[in-house]
């Protein structure tokens, strides 16, 4: 048995979603929870320059646990960039596509940073910590690009930009039982923390930024732990409290299938510098009505007016063979697009994929197939997301 692509049967990374493996000449960085993962028997993988848990036991079981109970993720590879100063809000309004000065203290926004040509450099969550203070959370692989772009775009504003990624660990607890597991461990009244809100609190006695955000399609929290080396205390307390509720540690493999089912984009797949937010169907994050100029405005105004060249659709296979990213999508035998992500969906019990197709494509008629290494797998076109939790 050998791996089809590179001759190594046991290298699972070629299809690991997201970003390419880091330069093998440099050893991957370890998170503050590395020892915890090793003790839990995690399969670790080099992801964006970090040695991260891919899975602990069965990734399918981890996925199901998040849908039905809860899962605990180490996301310490994500980057945290702080903007502090009287013009922090104005600087972000100029640097990002969103209207960040309108965000209330304690709330968060999903937004993006684009180049002048409107191409997406990263998708971000921005927390407003104070009148003059924001925390920008970036994808691991993009932290250097985002940090330097923010520093450059903030010059001329009265604000300081600091890449504090190394100071933070990030732990996410996700799933319908996250609230009852977290509640006894925190000083926060969790009913007061709405979706996309975040405040300074304690968890297990450790000071944290506690935010109701996530990337799984479930209710849950992201816990920014500072200093980073106190993460093992928080992790251990959550596992001890949560295990009787069905909480399991969960790796990047289940995180990817969870976000895919929830129809959430992943940078490097659904988003990249060659696409605008409008291409990805996320034009709503671009606030063209905000005052002042911002980087990418002219290109994005143009993109908002013109018919989209491509759009993102969902595909559900009628067969069993998993769909993967980078596979041609055909309508009645003619190539009309390409998959951006694909995986077996544990919740649907079928292979799913997201795909970019021609913007004016009629999906109501015709026979759709995906070319899986020369075999045409018949698929149905569906609305995204594939999965939506009952609220």
């Amino acid at each position, binding site marked *: *048995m050998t791996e*089809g692509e590179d001759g190594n*049967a046991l290298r699972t990374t070629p299809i690991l979603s997201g970003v390419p493996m880091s330069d093998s000449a440099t050893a991957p960085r370890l998170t503050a929870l590395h020892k915890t993962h090793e003790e839990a028997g995690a399969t670790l993988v080099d992801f964006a320059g970090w040695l991260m848990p891919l899975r602990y036991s069965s*990734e399918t079981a981890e996925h199901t646990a998040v849908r039905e109970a809860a899962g605990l993720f180490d996301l310490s590879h994500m980057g945290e960039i702080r903007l502090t100063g009287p013009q922090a809000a104005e600087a972000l309004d100029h640097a990002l596509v969103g209207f960040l000065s309108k965000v209330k203290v304690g709330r968060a926004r999903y937004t993006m940073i684009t180049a002048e040509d409107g191409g997406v450099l990263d998708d971000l969550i921005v927390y407003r910590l104070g009148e003059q203070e924001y925390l920008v959370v970036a994808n691991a692989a993009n932290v250097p690009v985002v940090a330097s772009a923010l520093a450059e775009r903030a010059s001329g504003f009265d604000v300081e930009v600091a890449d504090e990624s190394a100071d933070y660990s990030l732990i996410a607890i996700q799933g319908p039982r996250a609230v009852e597991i977290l509640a006894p461990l925190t000083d926060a009244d969790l009913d007061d923390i709405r979706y996309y809100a975040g405040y300074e609190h304690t968890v297990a006695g450790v000071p944290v930024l506690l935010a109701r955000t996530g990337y799984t399609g479930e209710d849950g929290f992201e816990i920014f732990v500072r200093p980073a080396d106190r993460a093992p205390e928080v992790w251990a307390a959550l596992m001890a409290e949560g295990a009787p509720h069905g909480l399991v540690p969960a790796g990047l493999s289940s995180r990817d299938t969870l976000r895919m089912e929830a129809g959430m984009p992943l940078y490097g797949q659904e988003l990249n510098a060659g696409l605008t937010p409008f291409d990805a169907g996320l034009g709503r994050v671009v606030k063209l009505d905000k005052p002042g100029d911002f980087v990418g405005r002219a290109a994005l105004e143009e993109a908002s007016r013109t018919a989209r060249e491509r759009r993102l659709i969902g595909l559900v296979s009628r067969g069993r063979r998993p769909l993967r990213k980078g596979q041609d999508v055909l309508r009645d035998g003619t190539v009309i697009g390409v998959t951006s992500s694909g995986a077996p969906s544990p919740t649907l019990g079928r292979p799913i994929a997201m795909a970019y197709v021609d913007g004016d494509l009629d999906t109501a008629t015709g026979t759709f197939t995906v070319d899986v290494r020369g075999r045409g797998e018949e698929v149905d076109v569906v609305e995204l997301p594939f999965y939506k939790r009952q609220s």
Partner: protein
Amino acid sequence: MSVPTELGYTAKHEWIAVRDGIATVGITAYAAESLGDIVFVETPSVGDDVTAGETAGEVESTKSVSDIYSPVTGEVVEVNEALEDAPETINSDPFEGGWLFRVRVSEEPADLLSAEEYTKLTEGEN
């Protein structure tokens, strides 16, 4: 990780058991564990000829696609049809219920590893 002593092994992580001229083929527990949850298997069909060292199918996990190489030359006489509905059997029971296909051996397989040799090989990969 279990490595039954009565089986033969290949360096590509297949196992083989030959009895009365019929070889049963599967992938090892080490391979299944390394790949993660197996979600799809393609075996050869009954009547196909397979050749030692050549591709005889595919196994896909959540995050990987791997070729299965036949450790033996001959004609396929039986395939494990239960794997179509339950490919996860390869994870839970790789050396018994997770067998892939059976071959009427036309040439005795050469170069098989013993359980001890295979164990040494997998320890070297870690």
